[in-house]
């Protein structure tokens, strides 16, 4: 994408509205965006359910809001529910076997 001429158009917005030197003036823009978890694989390796959905146990419990995602320092991601169960047995990433350290939690 080119950004060279951005300044020309937005530097002086108010005058643009008043003078209307061009045929078409953009008044309003309603932009729609979709957010999803920033993950390399969309599937949780522990429960093998899509990370964009709640884990299966949360689905079964109709607990749709609580199921969030964690990333390790290795940048692998899992459902927090699934990972917290997992680390009780082994404190390593199920995918790369490095020691599991939480890097960030999705919010």
């Amino acid at each position: 994408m080119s950004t060279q001429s951005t300044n020309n158009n937005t530097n002086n917005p108010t005058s643009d509205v008043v003078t209307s030197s061009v045929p078409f003036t953009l008044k309003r823009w309603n932009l729609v965006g979709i957010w999803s978890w920033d993950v390399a694989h969309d599937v949780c390796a522990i429960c093998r359910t899509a990370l964009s959905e709640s884990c299966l146990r949360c689905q079964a419990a109709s607990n749709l809001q609580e199921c969030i995602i964690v990333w390790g320092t290795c940048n692998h991601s899992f459902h927090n529910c699934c990972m917290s169960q997992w680390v009780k047995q082994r404190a390593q990433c199920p995918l790369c076997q490095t020691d599991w350290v939480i890097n960030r939690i999705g919010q």
Partner: protein
Amino acid sequence: MSSLKPKEIDFNEQWSIVLGTVRSVISMGRFGQTDRAIWQERFFDIYYLCVATPDSHAERLYEETKKFLEDHCKSMKKDIAESDQNMLSIYVKYWTEYKTGSDWLNTLYAYLNTHYVKKRQANDMDTNYQPFECNNDTIDPPLVEIGEMALDCWTKIIIEPLKDRLVKLLLEQIHLDRICECVNQTTIKGVIMSFVDVCQHRKLNILELYEKSFESPLLQATGEYYREEGNRCLAKLDCIQYMRKILLLIDDEEFRSRKFLNPTSYSKVYNECLQRLVCDHFDTFKSECNELIIKEDLDALRNMYKLLKPTHIGINYMVEKLQDNIARIGHEKVQSLKGENLSTLFVETLLELHTKYMNVIKETYANDPEFVSSLDKACATIVNMKYGNRLSAKAPELLAHYCDSLLRKSSKAATDSEIEEKLLSSITIFKYLDDKDYFQRFYQKMLARRLINQQSISIDAEEFMVTKLKQICGYEFTGKLARMFQDIKVSDDLNIKFLEYVRSELSSSSSSQNQTMTNLLGLDFNIYVLQQNSWPVAQTITNTFILPHLLEKPLHMFEAFYGKKYSGRKLCWMYNLSNAEIRMTHLDRSYFVTMGTYQMAVLLQFNDHQQLTLTEIEEAIKINIKELEKQVLSLIDAKFLIGNTSELTMNSVISINFDYKSKRTKFKIPLISQKEANHDSESSQKAIEEDRKFYLQAVIVRIMKARKVLKHNSLIEEVITQSKQRFLPSIHIIKKCIEILIDKQYLERRTNDEYSYIA
């Protein structure tokens, strides 16, 4: 009388005095009233006889009284038997008198009853004597109170030998009543009720005499009478007339029962009538039933219902026929629908049908639940009819469209309550859907469109509908819809925070506090950020689109703002869903037009050039050429641009239309992406299949978590029960999901047909 002290009494002397009074009491009607002083005296005479010294005369008194009553009955019997014409009336006359007399006599003999009869009965009980089962002649008949004894005498001496003659006369009288001859109602009822009343003291089988001697021959005669009557009527009447006629006959017979019979017989007579008049001719009813339903002869059907409902045959046949007919009519109506507004036609046709038959059932079938459920079944078959080869019934989509047309801002102004009323009636149809998840999918899609384009008529109406759906299908069913509303609210909040952010970024002075987005960024910039899996939107994978320059800065600012606010999220912009408002200033007056982002991007190119080729536009905004052609064509259609629409090539020259004129100054043109292609329903079909599998897995996990171990068949059954509010899963797909879960190690197979849950 001065003293109650027992004394010596000469029985014969005393008895002859007592007997005189006894005689006048028992036949009070013929010899006039006994005066009160004498009554008092006899009462004490009986007392003294019972307590006489040295020995009580109670036993002799009892025996002599019995002998007297027997003799009295014998003489009455002779009178009755010899009266020929008047047998029934003489019988009733004697009976009425004797019955009253026996009651009085029982009172007169109160002392004997209490101190002799009851004591003896108590002694007999003590020695295990069983009075009710004793038929042994060698044992004396058990002692009974004087009143009862009197009635027993009547039974034994008068009824037993005369009952055949009496009953024959009674049946003759009843027959005469049936053919509308004049009869003496009081006499007939009196004789009949004597069979009941004479046994009133019995502790068991009070009705035995009545039922065996009278009721059973009556029922037989009734049956024969109505068998003939039924055949006779049917020979000269058609079915409709016949039903009308026999309803009258049955009514008459019910009235007759009340005139003559003991209440326990009413239903038996009624059933006998139904058996002969209705059940015996069921074939006639059956062959007429369908015709009546087709002709909608509600009067005749109401009669048929009244007649069949109380029989053992019942109304199953009628119910079945009605259901078939409603289903057939519904199919025909639905299949003949055509035109623009198919969804409204479809829903309103069904509702009309539903309302009509609800009324028919109310008026004709007394709101019988069996008919109500037949209407439900018929509606369900109509609604879930699969057209042609397509797997999905059309109904879910049409119904969702209908709701959409109600909930979308439109020219048709309706009040909130009108909208809610119509939504409520759409719920009536919704309940019949087998594939409620299909509906949900379509509904969700249309809701998304309403929300993103700000076309909802009101958030109250939206929430009203979602609440109704939740009531029927539960929280999970509407979870995504609820989260869509939530996302819109969150986005509103986000926009306020973003404005604050822009203010703080772009100006250091405090005067920026009141700056609007337009002041700051040159346009009113509004963003919806939606959670991917709550919204039915497919992400476009390759997005080469080059934003108009003036939008880059606002967008980058937002991305920076969003990245600071949330972590772990990535954003994907859905330009095809985004819309823009353009002001056109090169014309006779200013026009404000709402359009799609791509359309906006094309138009903005013409700010620098009065004309461009398609190639030039393509190079400037870099969207797929097919897509671009559609966008350009839509703008030529809208007359904002000029170009040769019939032969659009890469070198076609497109220019601004400076002569554009319109009556309205503020309007929108259709977003191209809203027109959905056909393959869309196929892809949503696949998506639904995936959803179903996922949903079923969750259901299975929920069940197994609760039950730990379960047999295969029980599991399947339970899964079907839990999911049928949403759709009817096939066994095949459930099995598949079980396999998936075994694979994912949620379940394990214990034996061949048993699973256990792995925690």
